[in-house]
């Protein structure tokens, strides 16, 4: 087994609390499948047979009991639960399962929906014997209107600056605009080695990483690192160019022992991806080089290397905001070829269902209902003369006669009263909208789920 897959599915979805209050993020329905299905499917497609899923007890229980959440995968799932309130970061989670990690790992986040060719990332990892390789994609503009959001989305967001080399593969620099108040600083020695650097903004990090096993061991020793994206990756990127990584005699036994006495040096040496002797010999004898200009050895003797595959086209979404959730729902059905209308759904002949809509299992759609560009969850009842456009209706919702629902998200088990007119709203779960209500651009949630301040 070359790579072990690890799926991180313990996140709370803190950036879309209104949605995740009742349904945990991994279980949010996207195209009538729980969100967690997408990364699992991605892994299954490329041939993984076993996945370690890190999640919370609650999610595990739901997966195993609730039929609506049934994961339609053949892979062997090794579910590891962590305590929800322990406030564990992704790196903490890796440390937690360190015992299970036997090889290099592929870490995927549960909110990733992509049609990326995973082998591109893994090939980089293999070809360059990299310590880290990751996936990024051009950021997409979200076109849909987001319920409950007043005005246009603010554009003054902090951008991420990603620096790659001339080939666009090697990851050289990574920083957030917020940390660059003194300007972007690059050491000249880096520029001498890799004289051409592309600085890209407007990329999304797909949170998909190939990591060497030594990195996990490093995490086990270095407890202060708690997040992969926030701390580990920037640390690795920075470490590429620090002196200790390039010193030629790290293989030296005595040297190693010496360094072990020194606490910090010890941690650094752990993370070193030590090239095997044969591999090193190959590199010495080969005329291949990764750079031009000066005559120094390939990679300039750098042992820790980070690479990134940047998708130019294709789909790559991280469902971590409401806007992304809506967008994902619009596009996700294209990822799998299942009938748009579930066979067990009871659909009246005299209703109108657009080709771009999905109807879940055991739904009831009555006469003269019209459903366009929408997703209807399982066991939902849609009565006569209801119009649903551009909306996401989750499981077990009842929509009474004559309702008009447009551009909205209706969470599970809600009842919409007769003749209600709901436009661009987010309706929380188990709500009851009174008949003839007119709501526009609102977030309708129960008082108990208002955000605590």
């Amino acid at each position, binding site marked *: 087994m070359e790579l072990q897959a690890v799926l991180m599915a313990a996140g709370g979805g803190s950036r879309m609390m209104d949605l995740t209050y009742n349904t945990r993020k991994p279980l949010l329905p996207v195209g009538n499948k729980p969100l967690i299905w997408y990364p699992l499917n991605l892994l299954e497609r490329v041939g993984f047979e076993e996945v370690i899923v890190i999640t919370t007890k609650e999610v595990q229980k739901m997966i195993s009991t609730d039929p609506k959440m049934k994961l339609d995968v053949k892979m062997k799932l090794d579910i590891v639960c962590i305590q929800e309130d322990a406030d564990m970061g992704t790196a903490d989670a890796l440390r937690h399962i360190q015992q299970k990690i036997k090889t290099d790992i592929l870490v995927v986040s549960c909110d990733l929906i992509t049609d990326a060719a995973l082998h591109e990332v893994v090939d980089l990892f293999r070809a360059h014997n990299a310590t880290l390789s990751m996936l990024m994609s051009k950021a997409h503009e979200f076109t849909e209107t987001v319920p409950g959001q007043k005005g246009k989305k603010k554009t003054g967001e902090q951008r991420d600056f990603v620096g790659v080399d001339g080939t666009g593969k090697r990851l050289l620099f990574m920083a957030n605009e917020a940390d660059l108040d003194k300007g*972007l600083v690059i050491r000249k020695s880096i520029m001498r080695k890799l004289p051409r650097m592309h600085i890209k903004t407007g990329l999304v990090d797909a949170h998909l990483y190939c990591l060497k096993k030594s990195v996990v061991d490093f995490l086990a020793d270095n407890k202060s690192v708690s997040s992969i994206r926030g701390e580990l990756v920037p640390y690795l990127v920075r470490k590429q160019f620090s002196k200790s990584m390039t010193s030629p005699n790290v293989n030296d036994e005595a040297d190693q022992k010496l360094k072990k006495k020194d606490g910090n040096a010890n941690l650094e040496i752990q993370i070193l991806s030590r090239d095997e002797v044969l591999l090193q010999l190959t590199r010495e004898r080969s005329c291949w080089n990764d750079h031009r200009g000066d005559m120094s050895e390939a990679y300039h003797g750098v042992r820790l290397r980070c690479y990134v595959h940047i998708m130019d086209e294709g789909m790559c979404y991280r469902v971590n905001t409401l806007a992304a959730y809506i967008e994902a729902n619009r596009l996700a059905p294209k990822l799998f070829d299942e009938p748009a209308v579930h066979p067990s759904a009871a659909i009246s002949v005299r209703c109108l269902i657009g080709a771009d809509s999905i109807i879940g299992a055991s739904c009831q759609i009555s006469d003269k209902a019209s459903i366009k560009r929408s997703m209807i969850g399982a066991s939902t009842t849609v009565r006569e003369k209801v119009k649903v456009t551009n909306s996401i209706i989750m499981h077990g919702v009842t929509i009474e006669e004559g309702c008009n629902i447009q551009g909205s998200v209706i969470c599970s088990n809600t009842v919409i009263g007769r003749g209600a007119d709901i436009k661009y709203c987010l309706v929380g779960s188990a709500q009851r909208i009174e008949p003839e209500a007119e709501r526009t651009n609102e977030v309708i949630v129960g008082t108990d789920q208002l955000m605590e301040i």
Partner: protein
Amino acid sequence: MSSRGGKQKKGNVTSEQEEEEQPLQAVLVADSFNRRFFPISKDQPRALLPLGNVAMIDYTLEFLTSTGVQETFVFCCWMSNKIKDHLLKSKWCRPTSPNVVHIITSDLYRSLGDVLRDVDAKNLVRNDFILVYGDVVSNIDVSQALQEHRHRRKVDKNISVMTMVFKESSPGHKSRCEEDDVIVAMDSKSKRVLHYQKTQGLKKLQFPMNIFQHGSDEFEIRHDLLDCHISICSPQVAELFTDNFDYQTRNDFVRGILVNEEILGNQIHLYVTQDGYGARVSNLQMYDSVSSDMVRRWVYPLTPEANFTDQQGQGCTHSRHNVYRGAEVSLGHGSQMEENVLIGRDTSIGANCHISNSVIGNNCTIGDNVVLDRAHMWNNVHISSNVEIHQSVVCDGAVVKEAVHLNKQCVLAYNVVIGPNLSLPDGTVVSMHHPEEEEEDDDDEFLSDDQEVGHSKDKTRQKAFNPAEVGPEGKGYIWKASMNDTEDEELAQCLWGLVLNPDPESDSESEASEESQDRSRSVSPEIDDVNAFQLEVLGTLQRGLEENIVCDNLVLEINSLKYAYNITLKEVMQILTRVVLEYPFQQQGTQLTTLQYTGSLLPLLKTWSPVFKNYIKRAQDHLDCLSAVEELFLEQDTHQTAMVKVLMKMYQLEILEEEAILKWFSTGATNDKSRQLRKNQGLQKFIQWLKEAEDESSEEGE
């Protein structure tokens, strides 16, 4: 490169179509406005120095002509007559020349800025023009760049004022000029220059964030560019130089445009060529590498045998291993021309010589058993037998006598005689001009170097040649490179330019320190409010002292800080006490003796007593203040003797009341240390004194 001819024709056609009535113009600056080639350029202007036996200005003019320039303005200053004579004799001034050359001379030009201001004043250019120096060697076809430039100007309404031409060349390449080591930040799509900086001597490259806020999401930072010193300029460039009379060089201009981009709305773009060759001979290092590139045919079609200057007798033959021979070259028995050798006409070489990577001018004579490697010999040079020359320049008319050994980077200027039996160490420069004489002669010529003026006026002159330096029959004076360097802050002033020695070790320190910074940054907790408040109070008091602010205002400030950081009154008092008592340490270091400490503290207490009085009112306040004092002196246990003095002063200033002090003394002791503190003799006495005073006062009261 073979496709160049065709491409060029196409470029010409299109440019002609675009503006048939407007010929393409160029401004050629045949002066460097610096002294990098001194003392060689004392006898001959840099533009006329031979490179591959052809004057450098000829390469520049050939480049301009081949790229389609029809009108060139040559600006000369230093030794303008020589340049003028040369050009008048050359093919450029023949009536058949496709490129009309106008020579404009003036002794008043001091910089590129002056030249361009003159261009503006005389209204010479009517359209986009090419700006080059007279020492640029290039075969780049700029018509592509020119088209891009024109297109940009059409689309963007004259926003782009300049397109700089760069050659791609990775760091470490030998034709890379260390002085022109630039870093460029550009917009990947529009090729717009956002940041332009010379990196010499920098360890970290810093890019201001505002350059990344132009809407684009892809930028490029490039360190693999060699500045060819070819720029395509709009007519505005000349105007901008007139408007900004402080612009001296193109560097000033570029920096000015980039900094003032927001105000003036002008932009600079760049054009990068991958296969062309372009370099400016800005120092001898570059001379060496450009010359060897020339012989190795990198500048094709400008090759030695092409005789593009169309001069009689300049022709030579090209044979394998890049060996070129001019007419009437005689080669002695057993002599070897290994590779990359160019020999001018009428040169005779003796027997058993070994020549490699060298250029030898016209009419030279070389004796037997001579070894030449990377030697650049100009015309009429006489080399006797058994001479060895490595990587050196030997100028016109120089004579090298028997058994002389020139080590690396030697320069023999015009008409110098060296030897016999001498070995010149690395980097020796010999000239017929005395190093000190030139400074007076040329002061008026080069005002830019005026820091050198008069620095050696009263030095005694040694006019005699020193046989120890130039040999028994030698003629010439040694120029010491260090002579100039003492005054120039720039290292770059030596003739050969900087020696390439990237120093990897020096990086490690900064890296290490950066790492440690990183670590401390990630580990150290954020400064909590109390600490921040303490720092602010310290700052306030400091400022108060410096600017003589009234205590009432200080109190106001501290009060506002108290609210800002949500500090209780008790903490305010404790922190205030602490800050004041630590103030001498803060200002003068912790190595103060107790005497110095009290000496500086007591006046401070007096100054700030109103501040204290404002906060210390209730009995509890007094106790808190005292406990703060105690706490501090427990930490600074070497200064405990000062404590009694502090308490005394505070008592005298009526900051503290005697009851409070007595109460504190009798009850405040909570642990061993504070008990120990109270056993201090001075303190005991003070308390004793207080008690008596109290008794007295109470007695008086009765």
